[in-house]
């Protein structure tokens, strides 16, 4: 699972990225030229399309039992069937929407919350900052998943919307923490100081000077929360905490588990859903790495550089500068 530990690069490097210069068109293009980002976006795009048209292209009704019973993949049922003879491919196709909907909604809400708390804390300083940081630290330390399980468990038949709300309410803290650190470092930059000296209002400064510079961090926090939300949602569905009549990939796994799919050797029942989760998760992490490398250039010996270095058998490293005689670079 994705842990916040993957993010410290962004936290410890508040100065490196997202300066004004980076905001230009070339900067954005650079981001989209990153191979990781592109792969991530393509996979995510594929699943987004499935989410939109999944129920239209699904060959069967996902809930409809049939007499075929438990069958491995075949020409009729590409991903096989469940014990009740339901088509697993259809379940996956129909379930995609629920997964992405909850993930994106929760991510969005959490991103809004984390911007509100993080940027305000970073910008205010003083008591307000202390209070808000304390609040986000408390939310960080309290284990979110058990809390979500309790709340969802107490609510009878929690549906997708409820789950998204609960996840957002518990999952905003990490983003707020990172944003606060970034805002703090931005606040001391010249152009913010200048805007303040010019008597621009706090809101104007936050909206027009600070937020645009936090785009990368907000995006990375958003994606992190989406991953967390998707994993939580699927876990909840797998545990049967949420409404099991709403199809998503977790529900499939719930039925697989409660029908002993493992003992029956019915790998097709739980492998495809898991691979889909992994694919979406990987896509999102790849996009986040793209953002990370965009923000923190030290992490990037860009693919191109790495290739050149490999081709020439140069190992770029600290402490022993490589000597390479005869590069093509002309004396300019």
């Amino acid at each position, binding site marked *: 699972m994705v842990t916040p530990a993957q993010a410290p690069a962004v936290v410890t490097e508040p100065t490196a990225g997202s300066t004004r210069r980076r905001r230009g068109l070339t900067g954005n293009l650079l981001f989209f030229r990153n191979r990781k980002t592109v792969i991530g976006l393509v996979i995510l795009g594929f699943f987004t399309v499935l989410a939109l048209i999944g129920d239209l292209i699904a060959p069967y009704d996902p809930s409809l039992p049939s007499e075929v019973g438990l069958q491995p993949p075949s020409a009729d049922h590409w991903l096989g069937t469940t014990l009740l003879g339901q088509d697993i491919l259809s379940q996956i196709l129909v379930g995609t929407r629920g997964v992405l909907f909850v993930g994106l909604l929760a991510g969005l809400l959490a991103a809004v919350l984390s911007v509100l708390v993080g940027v305000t804390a970073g910008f205010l300083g003083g008591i307000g900052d202390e209070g808000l940081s304390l609040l986000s630290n408390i939310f960080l330390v309290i284990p979110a998943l*058990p809390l979500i399980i309790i709340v969802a468990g107490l609510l009878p038949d929690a549906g997708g919307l409820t789950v998204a709300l609960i996840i957002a309410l518990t999952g905003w803290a990490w983003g707020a923490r990172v944003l606060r650190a970034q805002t703090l470092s931005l606040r001391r930059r010249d152009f913010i100081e200048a805007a303040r000296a010019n008597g621009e209002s706090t809101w104007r400064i936050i909206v027009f000077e600070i937020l645009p510079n936090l785009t990368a961090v907000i995006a990375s926090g958003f994606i992190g929360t989406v991953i967390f939300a998707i994993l939580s949602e699927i876990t909840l569905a797998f545990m049967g905490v949420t409404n099991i009549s709403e199809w998503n990939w977790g529900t499939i796994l719930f039925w697989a588990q409660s029908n002993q799919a493992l003992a029956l050797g019915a790998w097709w029942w739980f492998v495809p859903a898991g691979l889909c*989760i992994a694919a979406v998760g990987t896509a999102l992490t790849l996009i986040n790495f793209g953002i990370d490398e965009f923000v923190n250039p030290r992490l990037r010996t860009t693919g191109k550089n790495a290739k050149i270095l490999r081709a020439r058998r140069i190992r770029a490293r600290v402490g022993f500068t490589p000597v390479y005689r005869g590069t093509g670079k002309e004396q300019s």
Partner: protein
Amino acid sequence: MRYLLRRAAFYLLTAWAAITLNFLIPRMLPGDPVRSLIARFQGRISVEATESLYILFGLDEQKSLWQQYLDYWGNLLSGNLGLSFAYFPTPVVDIIEQSLPWTLALVGLSTILSFVLGTMLGVWVGWRRGTWADGLLPVTNFLSAIPYFWIGLIAIAVFAVAWPIFPASGGFDPGLIPSATPEFIGSAIYHGLLPAFTIVISSVAGWILGMRNMMVTVSSEDYVTVAHAKGLPERRVMIGYAARNAVLPNVSGFALSLGFIVGGTLVTEMVFTYPGIGYMLFQAVGAKDYPLMQGFFLIITLSVLVANMLADIAYAVLDPRTRQEG
């Protein structure tokens, strides 16, 4: 010292917040399901037990919220978390007492193992950046994007069903009675291996990536260059200068991630029917056993807080700047 005191104050505050949250949640949600459950046990349940459940869930409308809060604390401090519905009439505290050691052993050990292993691999991958060691990254990428429980399912399918070398479920051989005999301990370890392996595999990727990134960042610090300039052996530079500093943010990351990791590992227990908190929580959810769910949330949060505190102490030991003010 001041650092640790400040952290201790923070944990006390967080514990208070978690307990209060636990108090408030059932009061903000519809109380009818609990009421109907209590009604179902009517007659079998003693008057005091009913009262403690009323306190737990705020069903007594005569009392002010404040009075309820005080009663709640009173209950809590006397170790009364109500009775479990699913295992009626076992007190929640007893169930926690039974299952906590299993979770502490499994989750605690495998999380630490995963952290140590991941950190070491991260040191190595970060130090050898630009070599084939980078090839490990896509794998960790993929692993970090999969929910723990699914890796558990696959592990069972492969190592317990298709190629049965490990038991698929349980914490010990059902023929044995829990005791401190070597036979029982051996069986417990044997049953714990596959879940532990699952937890390590699913969480190690995060540590590798985090540590690798920190190594890359720290390697370009001046003091690492100075270490090279001094002609120190490579291992000494890598461990004593780069890794020694890079591990600091990783340790605080460890503390902050515990909440996330514990959530994931609890579900792993569920998959393996492991007799720890996670599996019992799952049972409680299935049986709509609200008192048990609440009790588990408290104990999980408090354990995470204690683990956090230990991580903070480790941090203080590792970083001289937190020890002395200067």
